[in-house]
């Protein structure tokens, strides 16, 4: 038995799949509000509409979606950083999950930016909950949020001088030789 590829399943389903209909409606609304060129890489992994945008637009989009009465994506579920060292010029990313509690629609937005210039506008003026989540992203990935009221480390010690969740930091000391395991990768 081979594991089934679940990502392929939604394409087989007919167009009346309510999640597909809802996502199409959400995407059409996003395009009318912010223009079609604002979103790239639109996909629906596991039924959750995902789009990539730019850091110049992200603040306007999330503020606009909070105010928009038709969709009302007013709840910031979570945000987190991500690091793809092999994507030169786009090494760092931020991923936002928005949720409309009135209509039960979720949206995932992504932005990517170079690791040498990790500056992103803060969302803490839109969502109060963004305050600590941005501090966490700063703590682990070194993303600078302009306009953040209190951008300092939150979970790690303050005098740490690196960003531990970036991929370049191995979980264990890479120079250790006593625990090498060629087959299962220490």
């Amino acid at each position, binding site marked *: 038995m081979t*594991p089934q590829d679940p990502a392929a399943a939604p394409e087989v389903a007919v167009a009346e799949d309510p999640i597909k209909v809802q996502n199409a409606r959400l995407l059409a609304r996003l395009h009318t509000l912010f223009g079609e060129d604002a979103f790239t890489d639109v996909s629906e992994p596991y039924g959750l509409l995902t789009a990539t945008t730019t850091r110049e637009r992200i603040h306007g989009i999330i503020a606009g979606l909070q105010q928009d009465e038709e969709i009302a994506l007013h709840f910031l579920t979570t945000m987190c950083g991500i690091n793809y060292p092999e994507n030169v010029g786009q090494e760092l990313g931020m991923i936002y999950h928005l949720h409309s509690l009135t209509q039960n629609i979720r949206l995932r937005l992504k932005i990517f930016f170079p690791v040498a210039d990790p500056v992103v506008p803060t969302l803490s003026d839109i969502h109060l909950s963004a305050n600590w989540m941005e501090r966490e992203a700063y703590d682990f990935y070194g993303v600078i949020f302009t306009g953040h009221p209190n951008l300092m480390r*939150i979970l790690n010690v303050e005098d740490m001088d690196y960003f531990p969740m970036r991929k370049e930091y191995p979980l264990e000391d890479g120079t250790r030789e006593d625990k090498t395991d060629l087959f299962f990768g220490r």
Partner: protein
Amino acid sequence: MAVNDTLEGTHHIIEEAREQQDKILIPLHNDFNQELTTLNLGPTHPATHGIFQNILQMDGERIVSGVPTIGYIHRAFEKIAERRPFYQITTLTDRMNYCSSPINNLGWHMTVEKMLGITVPKRAQYMRVIMMELARIADHLICNSILGVDTGAFTGFLYVFQEREKIYEIYEEVCGARLTTNMGRVGGMERDFTPVAIDKLRKWLKEFPAVMKEFESMFNRNRIFMDRVVNVGPISAEKALSYGFTGPNLRAAGVDYDVRVMNPYSSYEDFEFDVPVGTNGDTYDRFMVRNEEIWQSLRIINQALDKLPEGPYHADAPHYYLPPKQEVYKNMEALIYHFKIVMGEIDAPVGEVYHSVEGGNGELGFYLVSDGGRTPYRLHFRRPCFIYYQAYPEMAVGTTLSDAIVILSSMNVIAGELDA
């Protein structure tokens, strides 16, 4: 190594952040130019029930400002998870909200199953619902009885802790562990409920309501208790939503958001239950919402136990679910699967998935990015405590120190989940 190259580049980032930090103003004097007292509450204060530090500026008995410091038991779960196969991450989730570990465990399994496209049989889903609701009751019992202790009522705590102990005995019968349960497996449950487990559960379901009624009659209309909690630390629905509140704390503010109802998982749509809501989000509302949720959880358990379908307790997913041990000794395929699963050598599909469950104190989310390898490329836990604890200074400012303790207690902040 590349590590040192980027370190050079990051120093200016840290310097800039430190400059910003110096601009934060902490009040030192009150309106009459009298000096304020700085009080260090925590990190290891018996009344904070966990390792939280709050540096409070006090004007007499009144709190003027509070600066929380967290991270005392940060264990880098998200980083560790990037090196572990999926089944080994379960033990990390145990240690987040350790008052309701089964919810964390089973929520994580459901995330992986969603990614792999595994459908779990009805019996396993109902078994999961029973265990998750037991965990919710245990979680709420701790929160509410400790709130009683913090307001000076020790007796109720002793009453319900006996019942919590019985819940832990049921856990023991189901999975062999009590606190960090590591319950369930990807694809189902690790074993069927034993007859002893069912007996214990039925016995407990018969005995518990009387204790709960006693607990409620001790608190709900108690003049002393109500004086301590009514209108203490209220939060409006708008503020609560903006602060990212979920779970009982949000429902106490009057928003009926419950993941079990809005996005049912594990067959929650089969059960009948109500979502209690409060009105003004104060400590009393949070207490009452949790009490009512205990009754609703009991309803769900009774329904699930009565309707518990016959059938297998795990999915037919040999790539992910360990074969029976007897098979491993006799059967070649079983041995191969056993080896590959235990060594974590089974690759996952490429993709990203977000799944959330209703945890003990809110929406517990798992955001999993897989690059097709044996471990997650990135795993982010949406820990409800972490997000709503940032509202604490705002709720505590203007109250007295004793009220601040009660507010903290009623928010049910669990240090393990806060710091992950």
